[in-house]
């Protein structure tokens, strides 16, 4: 049994723990039934080490509940990025890394493998009591890995291959850009990696309504973006909440749909086997494997562009023969004197809908969308002003009204209410 180490080899396991600790946070140790107690203890300890004060706990009759609680408005940088900076390595990996970059300290310096091997042993390791031994294939493998990562280049001259450090990129003028985009851009953790190498720090920016959870999905997101750039299909594992077992699917990723209001990120994709479109929660996806490029990518993305004018959120209703089903949603609100901000809200939040002024105090919103149920939470934010509604999907309209009645009951307003 290996000893505990705060570094990890595989990100996928910690990903689900972090999500549980951050998003939920009410589970005790016993609540993680699908995972072993030892594994729970180790992962909890790691997160405490990475996240420090952001980890909290509370004692309940069921035991100690550990959770991550962060007011993201008060922090300039996403602490969950730390998990991406905890990859384990061997003693040889780290020793070789620093020696290689000391040998290849400038892009003007080039060395062939035999020269590198000789310098490692003669110059760098000779002074140690029990020097590590690096055989030729280990060093060659490392050099190849670094060439693939883009930090070294290899030049062939006859039968000899020479290695150089890649040219440096001057990012000294980008400090503010990096601070800002490492928080707001997709895969911002990569910007955080660049910042880690820089000396300067700044607190010029903070962020409101800032969902930091997506950080733990950056690996999946980067793989999906890469597939989209290369117009490739991918095979992914989807752990849907509706199914017990994860399912592997071959899909063509078309766009990432991000919510700034509910913290969710979806992949919108085409399923060639079913001639259908579907959206997948990015946090439920794993193990993205690139497949062949597809000639249909541009055509499918153009189709998505068209469909987006009927999407309130991430849902579409289109069958495999291409027939679409749209639902009409309409509601009218009344605004009082001095409530211009409500009208402004309607206009700025209407997305694919239309707002029409009926008179000084009355405004009508309408839209034709694939899935009216996606709009219900938003419409509820106008509670106290809704005077009329008309959904073509009667079930949704009735549900809205039933819910409203239930809320009246819940707050003791089921009888007559005085204005």
């Amino acid at each position, binding site marked *: 049994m290996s000893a505990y180490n705060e570094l990890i080899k595989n990100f996928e396991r910690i990903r689900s723990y972090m999500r549980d600790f951050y998003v939920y946070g009410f589970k005790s140790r016993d609540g993680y039934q699908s995972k072993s107690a030892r594994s729970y203890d180790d992962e909890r300890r790691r997160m405490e080490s*990475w996240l420090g004060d952001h980890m909290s706990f509370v004692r309940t009759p069921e035991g100690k509940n550990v959770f991550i609680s962060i007011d993201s408005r008060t922090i300039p940088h996403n602490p969950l990025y*730390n998990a991406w900076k905890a990859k384990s390595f061997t003693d040889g990996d780290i*020793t070789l890394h620093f020696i290689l970059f000391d040998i290849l300290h400038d892009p003007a310096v080039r060395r062939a493998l035999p020269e590198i091997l000789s310098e490692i042993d003669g110059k760098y390791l000779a002074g140690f009591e029990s020097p590590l031994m690096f055989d030729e294939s280990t060093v060659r493998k490392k050099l190849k890995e670094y060439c693939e990562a883009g930090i070294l280049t290899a030049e062939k001259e006859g039968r000899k291959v020479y290695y150089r450090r890649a040219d440096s990129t001057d990012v000294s003028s980008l400090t503010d850009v990096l601070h800002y985009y490492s928080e707001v851009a*997709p*895969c911002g953790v990569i910007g955080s990696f660049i910042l880690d190498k820089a000396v300067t720090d700044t607190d010029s*920016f903070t962020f409101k*309504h800032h969902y930091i959870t997506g950080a733990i999905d950056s690996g999946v997101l980067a793989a999906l973006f890469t597939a989209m750039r290369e117009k490739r299909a991918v095979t992914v594992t989807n752990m849907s909440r509706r199914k017990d077992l994860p399912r592997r699917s071959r899909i063509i990723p078309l766009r990432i749909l991000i919510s700034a209001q509910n913290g969710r990120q979806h992949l919108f994709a085409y399923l060639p086997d079913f001639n259908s479109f579907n959206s997948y929660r990015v946090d439920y996806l794993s193990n993205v494997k690139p497949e062949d490029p597809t000639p249909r990518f541009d055509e499918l993305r153009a189709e998505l562009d068209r469909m987006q004018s009927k*999407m309130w959120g991430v849902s579409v209703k289109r069958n495999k023969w291409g027939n679409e089903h749209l639902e009409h949603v309409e509601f009218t609100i009344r605004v009082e004197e001095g409530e211009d901000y409500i009208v402004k809200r309607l206009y700025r*939040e209407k997305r694919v809908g239309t707002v029409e002024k009926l008179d000084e105090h009355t405004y009508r919103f309408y839209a034709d969308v694939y899935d009216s149920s996606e709009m219900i939470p938003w419409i509820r934010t106008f509670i106290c002003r809704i005077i009329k509604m008309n959904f073509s999907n009667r079930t949704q309209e009735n549900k809205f009204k039933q819910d409203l009645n239930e809320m009246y009951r819940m707050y003791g*307003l089921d009888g007559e209410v005085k204005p």
Partner: protein
Amino acid sequence: MIFSELYSAYYNTVAAIISRILDGERNEKELQKIVTERAFGESGLTILPSLNTEKWQLVHSDMTTPLEHTPTMPLTTLQKRWLKAISLDPRVRLFGVTFPDLEDVEPLFTPEDYYVYDKYADGDPFEDEEYIRQFRVILEAIRDGSQIKFEMVNRKGNTMFIRCRPVRLEYSEKDDKFRLVTAGWRAVSTVNLAKIQKCVHYTGEKPSFGHEKEPTYDTVTVRLRDERNALERFMLHFAHFEKQAEKLGKDLYLVRIRYVHDDAPEMVIRILSFGPLVEVIGSEEFRGLVIDKLKKQKNIGLK
């Protein structure tokens, strides 16, 4: 590949330690400080001991190193691809910087590859020249700790003349707006950047007093019924707050959320959006705000 030791806190910390050793530092306590600052809570148990014991053969037991150069590493292709991607974002013009030459680099993503579908439509005019100019004046003053002066029209339509020290810029992705957080301005501490006019550096001699105002926090407590996946939706929706959840019984949960007092109206509608699956049980004041809205709704009628 994002998950790589090349980006690890350990590699960065060891690079910083070797740099200090090359500068002549031998004191272990000083080197341990680097570990505390740059790595994780328990890294102190591993990093220096691994170097001291020659497990990682980079530093001799007398705290000298066979390395001759300050450790640095060029950007990886992944880092360059991400940089290229952000160089394509329209907001990047705000910063007035020239990106390094990334001509041969494929972006990791382009604006076509993702879409934030629910951000508000009245975001800041990021491509407006005057907005960009003011943004840069403010950013510079934040870095320098200097003062600015500007004008803005208040809610009553009166023009206000303001001198203050900008502290930081707060960006909301939902609003797609920057707010300027200030110090030394008695009336207000935060203002939407788009409302600022004629902003320039203040070159006078009047000093700036005061600090950023500490926000007042309140807590709202709700009882949540986990139907229609409400628990997950709710916890994710409010994930960016300090919060605590507790299981009360089967499918029943208690959640406390700490929020800035001034954001109460926004919190009320966000909680209302969950309908009858979430009931506010505290504070009384917050519950009262919800009840007021429901009363009005009931009285207004709904056809």
